[in-house]
């Protein structure tokens, strides 16, 4: 049976992808031999500097990359199913612009009032991202229903609104270009174990959740009426996906800024490789998204060493050609 062999192919690919992700520990401003990496990981003695670089700098960064990549891809996949729209991504509801606005606002306020506010940046980002999504929801809501077209349109409006707010803050309040690029293009730099644990737990829980409701998502891509004919409570499901997706995106963005393209292209690649069945394409999206982001991050921090390219640039640079390729292929099939 083909379905099983797809799942099996995925399981076989898993350990290779995990090893591949760990190989990225070797690269950076300082090259560390692979043997030393495994020694450090299992707790054997290596030099102090190397151990700090691996365990305190690179490992959390790679794990954060896996978490953020998985969270964004899984959310993107669920939005693409819910909205029946191949161009949907986690940022379509305005969470990204909202989070960026919150983060930059926190920094502006820190400059003006209390420097300690900088440490609460991620809370500002998270709250503001959720706020933006709530506005989107309230604008789109029609009675007890949440029509998808309205949702996409109001998401666009909210994105523009908060985008304008970001520009306003940058021009009038605050001129730290590097931090702006952190929030607008994303970065995994400076990630501590705290955010790794938070993002990682969210990513794992959400991947499980979306895999479990995969059969309902399958029905959703055939249309809302069709889904309701096979017993899916469509409106309730949409609101659940909306809430869970918004939360996941806000977690990811408040940890790493707006990393583009992952949530858009990875679900497409997962569907191309493993089919559209969400019971498989969800875990596949999570793993592919995580590994893709880690690889992009390695390129971002090594190719231009010692300075760093914002990871959003790399994902877009690698992601765009892949996406164009898929788009052309789709056009041929349909």
């Amino acid at each position, binding site marked *: 049976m083909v379905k099983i062999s797809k799942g099996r192919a995925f399981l076989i690919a898993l350990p290779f992808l995990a090893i591949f992700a760990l190989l990225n520990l070797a690269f950076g401003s300082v090259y560390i031999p692979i043997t030393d990496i495994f020694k450090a990981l299992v707790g054997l003695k290596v030099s102090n500097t190397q151990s700090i670089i691996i365990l305190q700098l690179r490992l959390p960064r790679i794990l954060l990359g896996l978490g953020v990549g998985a969270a964004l891809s899984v959310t993107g996949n669920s939005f*693409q199913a819910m909205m*029946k729209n*191949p161009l949907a991504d986690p940022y379509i509801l305005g969470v990204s612009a909202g989070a960026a606005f919150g983060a930059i606002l926190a920094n502006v306020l820190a400059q003006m009032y209390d420097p300690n506010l900088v440490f609460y940046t991620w809370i500002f980002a998270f709250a503001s991202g959720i706020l933006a999504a709530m506005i989107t929801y309230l604008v789109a809501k029609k009675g007890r229903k949440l029509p998808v077209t309205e949702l996409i349109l109001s998401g666009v409006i909210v994105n523009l609104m908060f985008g304008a707010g970001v520009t306003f803050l940058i021009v009038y309040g605050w001129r730290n270009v590097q931090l702006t690029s952190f929030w607008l293009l994303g970065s995994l730099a400076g990630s501590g174990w705290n955010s790794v644990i938070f993002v990682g737990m969210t990513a794992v829980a959400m991947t499980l959740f979306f895999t479990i409701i995969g*059969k309902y998502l399958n029905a959703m*891509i*055939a249309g809302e009426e069709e889904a309701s004919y*096979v017993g899916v409570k469509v409106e309730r499901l949409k609101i659940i996906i909306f809430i869970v997706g918004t939360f996941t995106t806000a977690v990811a963005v408040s940890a790493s800024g707006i990393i583009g393209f992952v949530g858009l292209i990875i679900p497409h690649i997962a569907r191309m490789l493993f089919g*559209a069945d969400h019971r498989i394409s969800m875990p596949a999206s999570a793993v592919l998204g995580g590994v893709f982001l880690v690889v992009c991050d390695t390129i971002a921090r090594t190719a231009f060493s010692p300075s760093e390219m914002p990871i959003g640039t790399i994902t877009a640079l690698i992601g765009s050609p892949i996406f164009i390729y898929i788009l052309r292929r789709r056009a041929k099939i349909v």
Partner: protein
Amino acid sequence: MCEIEVRDLNYSYFGTLRKALDAVNFSVCKGEFVGIIGPNGSGKTTLVKSLTSILSYKGKVNIMEKEVRRYSKREFARLVGVVAQEFLPAYDMKAREIVEMGRIPHTGLMGQMSREDEEKVDEAFECLGIPHLKDRMFYSMSGGERQMVYVAKVFAQEPQILLLDEATSHLDIGHVEILLKKIRIIFKKEKKTVVATFHDINQAFAFSDRIIVMKDGKVVADVIPEMLTEKLIYEVYKAHCTIVHHPKTNKINVLMDLEDERSFDPLRNTLIRSKSF
């Protein structure tokens, strides 16, 4: 008591005053095959959507003596299956994965397919004679094959009542024959009910036990096919036609009077030269 009871059903689409359904009354008993015909915009699809409680109608729609709104979605999906005009998933899927959707109302929260579910899916493919399509991708199929897979999905759902909403209107006659024949034979054998709207009235006459004719949201006739007259067809469709009996099956058949420039005026019972040509 009949299986489907519709009493004083009214519906207007949001923001319009026109009644899409206007005091519709009818009932369908267990094991019947009822065809619904009427011109475009007469309310056939609205009626089907009301029967599935997708639309918030006014009036009473009872299925198995229970108001359709009061069923849980899952419960309802095990009772009623719907085949619409077209099924088009946003992303390409295997035929098998599509038919598996039919098992959603029967599986638990995790959606794990049991051995029995797998068997039902295979059965649905066998039943329609399309086991060769199981592993084909949906987008690569012809319109006819897609519709067969779609019906297989609804068969896997094992509904007691089947609603067809112009399910055959864009199929060639070969697919129409195989699809409607299979549905009729299987549902008659298991004494299950079918309510079908038709675009093509001859298909409706060939397969239905009873015909409900709709116009402007109202039921204008509820009769066995043999009772329909040319006059009624003209009043409903504004089409000139002749009713004949099929030489082999003896079922009634409507022929359109489109020969050259003349058309038949059923009100005067004469051939007239139409000015509109």
